[in-house]
């Protein structure tokens, strides 16, 4: 898939741990880890919204399309 998930980069920039994000967003650390690897089947708008809110970023900061 050409969609790359840059969640780990944003987490480093925000100096936030995955567990902390998990608590803020209400998504398990297992699911966030799978998302980080880009292996989830799909991501809901509501989840994306919560992640962007918690990390104070744009969806484009987390998801990137590469050729």
């Amino acid at each position, binding site marked *: 898939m050409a969609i790359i998930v840059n969640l780990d980069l944003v987490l480093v920039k925000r100096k936030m741990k995955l567990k902390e994000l998990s608590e803020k967003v209400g*998504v*398990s650390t*297992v*699911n*966030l*880890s*799978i*998302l980080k*690897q880009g*292996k*989830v*089947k*799909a*991501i*809901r708008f509501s*989840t994306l919204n919560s992640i962007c809110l918690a990390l104070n970023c744009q969806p484009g900061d987390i998801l990137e399309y590469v050729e």
Partner: protein
Amino acid sequence: MTTLKHIFVAFFIIIFSVLTTYYLKPSNPIRLTILFLMLGFFIFNLIIRKHLLYKNYFTSTYNILTAKVHYEVTYDISIDLMFEKVIEVINNSNFKLVESSKSTYEILAITPISLKSWGENLYIDFNVKDEKTIIKFCSATLFQMYSWEKNKENYDELLNNIEKSLVI
């Protein structure tokens, strides 16, 4: 071949039951012994079902008193994450997590007693091949030769729950 085995065993049990009912009185010691043996066997299965140690006993092809099915599915997710994921899915479903071993990547879950069966044991193994995780499911009945499709239903339900949980 499995169906033939089931038919043969069912036929044997029916003939045996008819003959003992016809020839032996209810208080006959042979009949009582058989009854107690069957009851003991059922209780024995009930006790040992909650241990991964007896997995081979339930899943063995030589154990003709349990019906079992084997399925395999591959995921492009690391084995550690997949192991955690399946545990999470089991905890959020009708299955009851009984035992899990991170060192051997094995999980044992059970289903409650229903109208169709006395409950099933669900054994889940994880293996790695070509950087992919292979999950092997084995659903085995506790004490019946025919599962009334419950084994297949268990697999479908678990797989469906895993797929659903991958949409976050």
